[in-house]
């Protein structure tokens, strides 16, 4: 550790006031604090000891909780690929390696571009590089289809960081979830690369290989929206996630492992996660009563394990900055996300995956919910004063 420290101390004067590279201090500071938790001590007044947690730890734990989704996604990309080509004897390792080769470039582009933008903004606006992108950089690849061109990943990331976050003042100030901003941008700007039947499974063939007859790369929700109820995989298969879809979203199981980590460590809000599932369950049950089309007939549990529902509930809805801030509000916010997601799924055949839009819509509504929750508290106080 000492050599690192010495090196940092040696180059530090260049970045401090009056140094040659003064402008780049935020970049230097980001690296320094990345390597070393600074020796800053509590002020002479106030709490002299502090909890060991900081935003870096919080964010890295969210990244850790995303790892099951990432690993499963890699395997599933390979599995779906070999299945489409009719290669039955592809081993677990084959699947995983194929997936890793496809997925890692997307992850790398997302992080490289996103952090590049973050550093640029930090230097221009002279603020510190914020940790928020550690998570966003991992979320973006996981909610994209595997066949997305890398340049689109780059543009979407830039759009998400600049328009989704920095224009509002950086992490903690944004209104919309940055990762979903990236996805919604791609969805409306390049719909052919974000929906349909051709993007979810990689069907690139090498010499001597060919896609099997009658293969469809549609997601289960796509099939359901088209009324192919017989093509929808079973609940168990959907729960484990062996279905086509965005890279990291298919496995409800992996999402639940992530949820367990988030809730146990106290980082993620169980209130939101729980109420999203409850909201979705309630809405799907109501639709079951009518059962007018395939999606309405789908059982509630099945709804919850298909598509991006579980992933959105665990990793997107819980983003503390864009969610409601009050505990009461969190129940309402989560419930409405679940409700709207299923509602959009069923009533919007053009876009069977409603989770993204439901969360973004509720991101916008979150301050309103909080407003009413806080107003209720104010009214309680006023009422008490009169008695």
């Amino acid at each position, binding site marked *: 550790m000492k050599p690192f420290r010495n090196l940092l101390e040696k180059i530090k004067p260049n970045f401090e006031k009056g140094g040659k590279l003064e402008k780049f201090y935020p970049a230097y500071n980001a690296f320094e604090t990345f390597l070393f938790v600074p020796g800053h001590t509590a002020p002479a007044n106030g*709490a002299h000891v*502090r909890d060991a947690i900081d935003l870096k730890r*919080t964010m890295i734990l969210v990244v850790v909780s995303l790892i099951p989704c990432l690993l499963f996604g890699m395997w599933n990309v390979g599995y779906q690929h070999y299945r489409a080509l009719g290669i039955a004897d592809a081993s677990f390792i084959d699947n995983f390696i194929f997936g890793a080769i496809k997925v890692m470039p997307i992850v790398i582009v997302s992080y490289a571009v996103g952090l590049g933008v973050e550093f640029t903004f930090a230097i221009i606006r002279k603020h510190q590089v914020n940790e928020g992108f550690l998570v966003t950089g991992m979320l973006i690849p996981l909610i994209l289809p595997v066949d997305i061109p890398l340049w689109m990943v780059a543009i979407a990331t830039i759009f998400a960081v600049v328009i989704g976050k920095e224009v509002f003042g950086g992490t903690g100030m944004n209104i919309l979830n940055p990762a979903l901003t990236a996805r919604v941008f791609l969805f409306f700007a390049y719909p052919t690369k974000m929906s349909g039947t051709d993007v979810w499974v990689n069907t690139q063939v090498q010499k001597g290989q060919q896609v099997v007859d009658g293969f469809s790369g549609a997601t289960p929700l796509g099939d359901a929206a088209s009324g192919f109820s017989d093509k929808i995989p079973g609940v168990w298969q959907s729960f484990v996630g062996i279905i086509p879809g965005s890279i990291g979203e298919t496995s409800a199981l992996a999402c639940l492992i992530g949820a367990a980590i988030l809730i146990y460590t106290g980082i993620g809000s169980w209130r939101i996660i729980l109420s999203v599932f409850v909201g979705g369950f309630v809405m799907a049950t109501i639709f079951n009563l009518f059962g007018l089309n395939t999606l309405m007939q789908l059982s509630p549990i099945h709804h919850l394990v298909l598509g991006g529902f579980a992933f959105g509930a665990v990793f997107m809805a819980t983003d503390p900055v864009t969610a409601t801030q009050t505990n009461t509000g969190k129940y309402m916010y989560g419930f409405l996300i679940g409700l709207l997601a299923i509602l959009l799924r069923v009533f919007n055949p053009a876009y069977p995956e409603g989770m993204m839009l439901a969360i973004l819509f509720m991101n916008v509504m979150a301050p309103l919910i909080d407003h009413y929750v806080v107003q209720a508290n104010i009214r309680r106080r006023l009422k008490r004063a009169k008695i």
Partner: protein
Amino acid sequence: MSNYIKLKRGLNIKLAGEADKTISTLPLPETVAIKPHNFIGVTPKLLVKQGDEVQAGTPLFYDKGNEAVKFCSPVSGEVIEIIRGEKRKLLEVRILADKETTYVDFDRVNPANLTRDAIIQAILNSGVWPFIRQRPFGIIANPREKPKSVFISAFDTNPLAPDNDFIIEQDGEDFETGLDALQKLTDGKVHLNIHADKTALKVFTGAKGVQINTFSGPHPAGNVGVQIHHIDAVNKGEVVWCVYPQDVVVIGRLFNKGRFNASRVIALTGSHVEKPKYYTTIVGGAIKNIIADGGLKNGKNRIISGNVLTGKQISADGYLDFYDTQITVIPEGDEPEFMGWLMPGLSKFSISRSFFSWLTPNKKYDLNTNLHGEERPFVVTGEYEKVFPMDIYPVQLLKSILVEDIELMEKLGIYEVVEEDFALCEFICTSKIESQDIIQRGLELVRKEMG
């Protein structure tokens, strides 16, 4: 009749260095200092000059804003130094203490036989009044006002806090007299709040003429602000007075013995004290002898007058703050830590389970003063609420202060809180936001607005 209030939200920070249950009687400190900045909102007007001889009970200065409120010397001796800061602001009045204290004589009377006005006069004249403070704002009570109730928290839940059961035991009689006097000050009740597990002393549990309320739960259950919130919440325009148990004893001594005797027992605590235990000293006493007797461990230490959550850093030749009954010594944490945010963190304390220290829930921690991160905007939500057992939205209140919206502060409950109520929020904050400082600014804004 007894109320039982069960608090769930909060956090006990388990620190190493609890004081041993023995009291060491040291000779009176050589010097004593009264620091006007211990009294929020007081503009001091000096009554003595360097070289003056004073007795215990001789006024040193009074409050320009409220001339009846006098601040008296707790010892007899010579005013050796008057320390002023920028713009001649009065910082400290230091007194070289006599070996034997001589006291100004006040009347020895039974407060039960006195009128409210007579009691207030007696307390004001003797310099005991500053021990009575009020909510809102946590300032010294205004003797012209009548509080709707008086609150005494018989237990302290702060980290390593002194045990009032142990301290008050020998002063039971004075404590009772003090209670008698306080009962005359309000038309409402005097609430004596005890802890379900921590309080067993008969003086508290068997106190007469007062309302006894039992609390259970972790810190901040012992904070009087939390107790007021749950029993007799302060609304706009209302005032509640509060007194610390040892200060009730000081009031009692005034009536029993006719003296301003502000001697007290304090706890020397903290992981960097060799022999943490209790000491007798006096309000504003120099801490030099206590530190020397208790012994400090090697290394860079931070000496705090008060506890680790709300205290003030003082130097080794400094003085105890006026209201404090505790000295805490912990190591400074100014060493950068390699990849500290990535390590398992078995010895790191966190309310979250984000470090693997959750494997050892009963461990006592040797925490240093490191911030463990840099300040950030509010990001994580719902964490303050876990340690804030009041029906108030802490983050929303802090934000209303940041935008200086006084009306909103009022609506969100600024009158019910003081800095110490946000100490745990500050402790657990992921974004390392100085919430106690923000609350102080908010209280000051509202106080100035009200004139």
